[in-house]
């Protein structure tokens, strides 16, 4: 028995597999493009922050969700990107170039971190990256000639086409553009040998090697790319913050980034974006919660990390594929509603019977 869908490989390597996807993404694009016209300045700013988080999420997703290397230190790359951007702008490097250089610095750091941690995996890697992030935050605090230490660093405004960009909607569109470019680049990687090599390392190192995947090369590459993308997010984050202080890039931020991709759904770019929406909305939710809780609990300083940790653990236990996984299950359920079980059952049987013809 032959199946007709083998005929067109052109279609298989396309980004969008069918017209329905194109339609919905076009609708989304229009909505996102007109949103600043109708939303309040505050919400536009928050949306820009979600885009920035999503960029960092895509970066971390590449490393943790696709290559299987857990990082508890990604706030450091965000920090390197942010300080890199602020420093380069203050030295007169023009905007898009400053951002790209900041990403390059973060990427190079990621490459250097990737090398010694190659032999580590799982919890040990998480601890090592955590240690690395501690060192970076120390450096940010002590290297005053560059970072201005605890005096803080006022981030110079972006100047483009002779205009100083200070509005929320400026950052909104810049972040959106960067997010789209990053997602397209990563999608391209994922439908190419490099992206598949990352997935291979995640699922079986020994099989990956036997198929020709050089573990050293691809693990350091994953680290470097992930760090560069996160650095890009950091450069934009600098403009969201306007004022940088070394303690802003701490373990809580690293956990938030990890939380984002785990809650969103590991191993999918949708997951990174959903997770960014979730984490972006979380502080407001916690703020409302604070108002409702008894004062003794609400005023505990450790409340936020506690809630983050709780959500992380609950997600891993109850919904390991995250928000995106839940969405896929729902979609499949409604698409196949009465037939779901029967159809899957029939397939298995058909295969068992398939003798050689």
């Amino acid at each position, binding site marked *: 028995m032959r199946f007709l869908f083998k005929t067109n490989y052109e279609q298989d390597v396309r980004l969008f597999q069918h017209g329905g996807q194109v339609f919905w993404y076009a609708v989304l694009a229009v909505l996102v493009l007109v949103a600043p016209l109708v939303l309040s300045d505050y919400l536009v700013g928050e949306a820009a922050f979600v885009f920035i988080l999503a960029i960092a999420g895509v970066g971390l997703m590449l490393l943790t969700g696709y290559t299987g290397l857990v990082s508890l230190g990604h706030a450091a790359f965000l920090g390197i990107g942010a300080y890199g951007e602020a420093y380069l702008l203050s030295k007169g490097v023009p905007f898009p170039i400053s951002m790209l250089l900041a990403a390059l610095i973060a990427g190079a750091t990621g490459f250097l971190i990737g090398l010694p941690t190659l032999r580590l995996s799982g919890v040990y890697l998480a601890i090592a990256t955590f240690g690395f992030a501690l060192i970076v935050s120390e450096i940010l605090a002590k290297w005053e000639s560059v970072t201005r230490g605890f005096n803080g660093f006022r981030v110079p405004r972006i100047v483009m086409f002779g205009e100083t960009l200070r509005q929320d909607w400026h950052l909104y569109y810049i972040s959106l553009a960067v997010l789209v470019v990053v997602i397209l*680049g990563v999608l391209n990687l994922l439908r190419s040998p490099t992206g598949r*090599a990352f997935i*291979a390392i995640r699922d079986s190192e020994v099989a990956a*090697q036997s*198929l020709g995947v050089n573990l050293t090369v691809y693990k350091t590459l994953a680290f470097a790319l992930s760090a560069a993308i996160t650095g890009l997010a950091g450069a934009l984050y600098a403009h969201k913050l306007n004022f940088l202080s070394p303690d802003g890039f701490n373990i809580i931020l690293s956990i938030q980034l990890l939380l984002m991709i785990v809650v969103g759904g590991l191993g999918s770019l949708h997951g990174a974006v959903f997770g960014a929406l979730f984490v972006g909305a979380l502080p407001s939710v916690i703020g409302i919660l604070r108002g409702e809780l008894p004062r003794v609990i609400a005023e505990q300083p450790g409340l936020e990390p506690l809630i983050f940790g709780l959500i992380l653990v609950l997600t891993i236990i109850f919904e390991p594929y995250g928000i995106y996984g839940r969405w896929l299950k729902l979609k499949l359920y409604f698409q196949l509603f009465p037939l779901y079980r029967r159809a899957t059952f029939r*397939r*298995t049987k058909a295969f068992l019977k*398939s003798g050689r013809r």
Partner: protein
Amino acid sequence: MTTMIEVEGLSVAFGGVRAVDQVSFGVEKGEIFSIIGPNGAGKTTVFNLISRLYDATAGRIVFEGRDISRLSADRIAAAGIARTFQNIELFENASVLKNLLLGRHAHRRTSVFSELLFLPKVRRQEIENRSIVEDVIDFLDLAHHRDARVAGLPYGVRKVVELGRALAATPRLLLLDEPSSGLNPEETEDLSFWIRDIRDDLGITVMMVEHDMGLVGRVSDRVLALNEGKVLAVGTPSAVQSNPAVVEAYLGS
């Protein structure tokens, strides 16, 4: 006839256990060559030495006239050797198609930068990869499962997917580690036809570790019997099976 792979005095020990001890044999191009022996005989270790996952303490492996004893494990696929694993090593959270496409990795000709932009040469390469993988899907009847995630598939199908992934690499030597273990008689029957077709139609030399003596007898040109890391006998399936030392090794275990 030309020699495909020549193994000379191959040895490796794990904490005093001589898992493989002075093993020598040669496999001709176009042969189906089976390795048999009781559990723990060192069969899988021989495969792991050839795929360079383990470093031999002594001996040489010459593949198509080229010494591969010092090659790193990730160069073996490009050299022309593909394999399956005794305990299935698939990429569980990826689709069958992605798994098979990974079989093509050693043939990669593109750089990361061209892939980030998905330049025309990347597209051409992907289309070429797809057409090779689709041939494998046809050959192994995997079309039903093409887009399924491996983790949800029955054991028998996963074994076939792993075979497919090795074939997608278009190797000249294929190492199969217990390909029939866990398969039902019908699936084993399919497998025996496939193994012969792999040799006859695809021209791939096959080395196989196998316990099912029926399957070994049906497909093998020659058999090597191993026990406690040492070669007991090499020859035709019937000659090896009636060899007194082999009979004793099996009864003794």
